[in-house]
């Protein structure tokens, strides 16, 4: 505030967050109030004024990047619905958090898609899961559930099939835990309710017609024909959900004019399991292994984001010990190794998509195997690492990466851990990156397929809330490790990889650079591990509690994951003693939000390029669909 008063000519785009809020309060005195709930942050905006204020936030205050937009249902805690927005500046710094509240009965909030197109999918998700209507949204329909679905499953009073209790642990497990299978129970018990006018014999899914309608096509094929006769040259092509190029069960509905794509609509949700609802039934600790299953290529990064968010909340309480230095160094090492795995995988499969079928990717997978072997020896599992804990880790590095025979034909390996790591980081991984570049960077076919294909301009990338290599490939040097540093990144020496062209090739180049930067970081981690040898990974020397209580408040923890910005929005609604289960657990999934510009990028390209463009975004469906 002082700095603002002292230098009134300072442009508002650089004003501190407090000053920015002051400015908003003076320009919209009646529409804004500070969020004064215990442990909460930011401002509460009058829903009527939301759109205007969002414009001011974006244009005048410079918060040009909408990271996350999500809903919370405060049933029994004030009985309202709330949309929570986190806006950042691409020049770096913290979030301006603003919220809009609406009642639960008929929740309506103005859509922000005209300000940030990145809000598109996120608002659709909030409509789908919470039933909040967004007035002015161009395409407000369900995104993860199917159109005929009854109810909005993230609402606190919605209960899933086989519902047992609101929160784990369930009482039926102990002390009188007589086992039964859920499937032996009747699914159509009292957990399921139907709309009154429904006739089970005539169930129809309206998802299909909704998809085609939003593309400007009626489902009624005859109508298309009537209009254009048989000479029509617009054709609808469904790619997926079961298509090798979609990296999972993902569907793209294209309209093509000849070979050229005129519009594209992503259809997802085939792998939806309502991760967030599960997360709200779970205790805080239960959620860590569940985060592994989001982006299952880089589970270490998922763990990291989640523990950071919960540690933010825990640090509000009195009895909180931040992780030790060794713990932080180990976390960063694991995350950077995951990034290498992620990028090797992304580049390899992107090559598959543009036709270099499996030879390059197998070379990269060979390296990935070594890293996964290391994860397995340290964390116990190759992909579902479940390695990080609040304030610590599952365990320190073992002295040796060593196996013991158990099954028939078992073959033993035995390496010194530090030696294995050193050789990996100093020899193998750099060599692989060199080979990768030799194989691809100047390869004429790769160049022809990828240069100037799928272009996303810098402004569009920001406006679409693109994240990770997709954003940096468009010339925006935004990397959370630098923009809002966490863990020990401030003291590490590395550069943000960035390329200006915004096409598929630029994204590829960004990934290669990031591979090199990760190696650079890892080389700095090794001496730190040597220096802290023997230090405990827990601040007080012993592992954390199995049922930690987390103080009242909200937190948004975000990390730069391989695929982009991974954020966790957590609300703890306990009393002063804290809560054992999160009230709200939201994942800002980069794979999901990065799909928002897919249609925009694909327009005007050939069908075969769409596959490459999707590959260059690098999605994983476990995270997209959640």
């Amino acid at each position, binding site marked *: 505030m002082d700095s603002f008063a002292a230098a009134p000519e300072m442009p508002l785009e650089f004003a501190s967050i407090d000053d920015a809020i002051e400015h908003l309060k003076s320009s919209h005195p009646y529409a804004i109030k500070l969020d004064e709930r215990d442990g909460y942050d930011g401002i509460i905006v009058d829903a009527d004024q939301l759109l205007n204020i969002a414009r001011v936030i974006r244009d005048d205050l410079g918060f040009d990047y909408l990271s996350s937009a999500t809903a919370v249902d405060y049933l029994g805690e004030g009985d309202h619905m709330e949309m929570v927005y986190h806006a950042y500046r691409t020049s770096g710094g913290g979030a301006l958090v603003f919220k809009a509240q609406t009642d639960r009965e008929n929740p309506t909030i103005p859509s922000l898609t005209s300000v940030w197109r990145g809000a598109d999918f996120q608002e659709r998700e909030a409509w789908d899961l919470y039933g909040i209507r967004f007035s002015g949204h161009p395409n407000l329909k369900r995104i993860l559930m199917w159109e005929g679905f009854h109810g909005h499953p993230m609402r606190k009073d919605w209960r899933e099939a086989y519902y047992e209790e609101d929160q784990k*642990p369930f009482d039926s*497990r102990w002390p009188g835990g007589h086992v039964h299978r859920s499937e032996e129970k009747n699914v159509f018990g009292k957990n399921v309710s139907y709309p009154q006018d429904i006739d089970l014999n005539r169930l129809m899914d309206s998802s299909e017609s909704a998809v085609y309608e939003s593309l400007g096509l009626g489902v009624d094929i005859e109508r298309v024909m009537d209009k254009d006769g048989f000479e029509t040259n617009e054709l609808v092509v469904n790619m997926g959900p079961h298509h090798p190029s979609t990296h999972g069960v993902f569907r793209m509905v294209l309209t093509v004019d000849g070979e050229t794509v005129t519009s594209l609509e992503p259809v997802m949700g085939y792998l939806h399991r309502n991760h967030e609802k599960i997360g709200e039934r779970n205790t805080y600790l239960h959620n860590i292994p*569940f985060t592994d299953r989001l982006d299952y290529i880089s589970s270490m990064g998922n763990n990291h984001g989640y523990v950071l968010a919960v540690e933010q909340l825990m640090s509000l309480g009195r009895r909180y010990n931040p992780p030790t230095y060794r713990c932080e160094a180990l976390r960063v090492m694991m995350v950077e190794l995951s990034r290498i795995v992620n990028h090797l995988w992304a580049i390899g499969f992107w090559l598959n998509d543009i036709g270099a079928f499996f030879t390059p990717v197998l070379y990269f997978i060979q390296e990935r195997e070594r890293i996964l072997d290391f994860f397995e020896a340290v964390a116990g599992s190759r992909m579902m690492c479940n390695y990080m804990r609040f304030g610590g880790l*599952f365990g320190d590095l*073992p002295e040796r990466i060593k196996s013991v025979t158990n099954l028939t034909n078992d073959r033993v390996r035995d390496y010194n851990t530090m030696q294995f790591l050193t050789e990996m980081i100093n020899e193998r991984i750099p060599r692989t990156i060199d080979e990768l570049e030799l194989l691809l960077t100047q*390869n*004429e076919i*790769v160049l022809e397929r990828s240069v100037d294909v799928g272009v996303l301009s810098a402004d569009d990338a920001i406006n679409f809330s693109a994240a990770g290599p997709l954003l940096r490939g468009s010339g925006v040097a935004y990397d959370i490790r630098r923009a809002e540093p966490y863990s020990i990144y401030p003291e590490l020496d590395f550069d943000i990889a960035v390329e200006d062209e915004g096409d598929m090739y630029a994204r590829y180049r960004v990934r290669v650079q990031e591979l090199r930067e990760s190696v650079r970081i890892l080389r700095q981690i090794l001496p730190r591990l040597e220096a802290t040898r023997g230090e405990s990974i827990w601040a007080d020397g012993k592992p954390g509690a199995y049922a930690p209580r987390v103080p009242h408040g909200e937190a948004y923890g975000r990390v730069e994951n391989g695929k982009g910005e991974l954020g966790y929005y957590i609300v703890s609604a306990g009393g002063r003693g804290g809560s054992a289960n999160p009230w709200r657990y939201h994942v800002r999934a980069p794979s999901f939000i990065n799909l928002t510009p897919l249609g925009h990028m694909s327009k005007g390209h050939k069908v075969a390029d769409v596959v490459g463009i999707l590959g260059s975004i690098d999605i994983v469906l476990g995270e997209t669909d959640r």
Partner: protein
Amino acid sequence: MYGTGLAKGLMLTLRHFVESYIDDLRYGFRKYHHSTDNFGIRQGTQTKGVITVQYPDEKVAVPERFRFVPILIVEDDDHPTRAGKDWCTSCGICAKVCPPQCIWIVRGSDPVTGRPVPDPEAFFIDIDICMNCGYCAEYCPFDAIKMDHDYELASYDRTTHHIHDKERLSKPNSYWRSIAPTRAYEEMLVRGTWEHKDAAKEARRGQSSSSAPSPQPAAQPAASTPRTTPAAESAADASASATAAPPAEGATPWSEDDAKREERRRKALERKARRAAKQG
């Protein structure tokens, strides 16, 4: 010149192709003769060429920390005093900490008094639901549940084979020590003995009941001792202790701790009401 990038790439592919054979030659095609030597080298950081493992003719032995479905530790048959006895005290922590809630435990009770005894009457894990997270092993205060290394569990019928009962889950302590010697050793260091915590405690008590004061009040009846540790731990969080206090054990239902907790709760509720009033 157009095509040089391509040619370089193809040369690299060729090099990989040749290297895969060089490695095979170096190890004299022993890879295909079930040889165990050189496996570590071929799989290590120095190797070049193909690293394929010929499963199931050869398998990569898993590292000690590897986790698959859990097993319950029982005392070896040749144990002098506790042969065949479960390490599990049915304290229930693993069931609480299990994320997908796939552990079901029936706590044992004394047939005469009805009081809970530190022995699970039944113990089930639904391995279809188990997500192999390893929490149960990590948080069990008695080292009684561990993650197995045997991942070959395919079966023809999931409905009859995939709920592991206590018999199926139980493995002798010596098995655990053989598949994870380093970890077993580390756990021993933490416990301070190779024996089960309680067994060691009882043994100590037997020796020193008269002389040195033991950490536990010596007057406490033996039957309820094992409960003290888990109960003391779970008293730290109110929800756990609410379920941990069994109805049958009503000797001191209202301790000083409970009174304090109730007081804290009342204050917290007051604060919450104030907050709500402020907002409303």
